[in-house]
């Protein structure tokens, strides 16, 4: 299929506008500082994870490279090997899910349930988005993993984990100051002094939680991809 040079422009500009709208909504609901921290946290959360996947050769974002002129990489703004609109997209879905499920639809449920709903909602959006985006070469799947509609199954698990875990991090660290199960022992050892007041966002703790859980998610995805592929190719 011939590539339309308008597709990357629409995607890039579209997500800049949408991220601005979501940022505005977040500021209105939670205030400027928590929304800014949520945004910066989502950049730190998704940037390394996505770059790691690109380096591993799972996919590439250079489908439109050299389309306009020889040295043009395909998109205007980049974060390593990742177009910046992808990071903005993660922020849009993470904040939207957070607002819809924590603030409106599941207000009386546990944070875990709210985060799971947000994760499933994001997977649902990706089920619609990914086949279109990959067939338009906005990103291209290079992996030999088992695919459904041209999209590897581990991708959907990745979407769920990214939104689910970041939702929990944000709820426990940015919007509340609560311990996270599994990390509290390490945190007690690292952050002995200066325990935060309830109203403050402890940036050191946020960065620690993001990096620690990022590592866990990367390991989990690497292992589960092998497992999914083994089951898909050998058992089914």
């Amino acid at each position: 299929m011939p590539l339309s040079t308008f597709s990357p422009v629409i995607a890039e500009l579209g997500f800049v506008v949408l991220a601005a709208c979501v940022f505005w909504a977040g500021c209105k609901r939670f205030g400027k500082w928590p929304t800014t921290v949520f945004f910066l946290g989502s950049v730190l959360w998704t940037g390394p994870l996505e770059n790691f996947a690109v380096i591993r050769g799972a996919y590439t974002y250079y489908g439109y490279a050299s389309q306009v002129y020889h040295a043009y990489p395909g998109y205007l703004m980049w974060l390593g090997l990742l177009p910046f609109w992808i990071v903005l997209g993660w922020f849009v879905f993470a904040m939207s899910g957070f607002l819809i499920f924590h603030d409106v639809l599941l207000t009386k449920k546990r944070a875990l349930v709210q985060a799971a709903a947000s994760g499933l909602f994001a997977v649902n959006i990706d089920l619609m988005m990914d086949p279109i985006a990959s067939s338009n070469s906005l990103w291209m799947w290079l992996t030999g993993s088992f695919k459904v509609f041209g999209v590897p199954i581990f991708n959907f698990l990745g979407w769920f984990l990214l939104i689910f875990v970041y939702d929990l991090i944000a709820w426990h660290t940015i919007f509340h100051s609560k311990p996270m199960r599994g990390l509290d022992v390490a945190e007690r050892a690292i952050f002995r002094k200066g325990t935060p007041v309830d109203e403050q966002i402890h940036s050191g703790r946020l960065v620690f939680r993001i990096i620690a859980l990022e590592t866990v998610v990367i390991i989990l995805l690497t292992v589960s991809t092998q497992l999914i592929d083994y089951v898909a190719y050998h058992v089914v």
Partner: protein
Amino acid sequence: MTESSEAEAAQKSEVTRVITGVIFAVLLIFLVVLSIGSPIVTIGNEAESMAYSVLVFLPVVVVCVLAILKSARADRASSLTQRTPGSLVGSLAKKTVRPADSDQGKGQTQPPDIKESARAG
């Protein structure tokens, strides 16, 4: 129900409309704008891709519509509660025991402006 909770419900409703608008814009960009040139047909034959689109499209729409309805209902309920007779009596009572009146040695309570109280909620 206080004025601040009414304002919060209104704010929540407005924010929900913006957020769901953003989600619909994402669907619009991908399902309509980027689908020109029929890339979605690469999913399978035309009927399969249509069924797939509807299947994945529906839950997102349902969640967004539910969120809009729930936040709008909360907003409406909160504005109605603000205007019930009970809350009117409460606001009148507040006005009659205004400490500033007794501090200034006026001794008498001011006759409250009912219309004003009702408007203020």
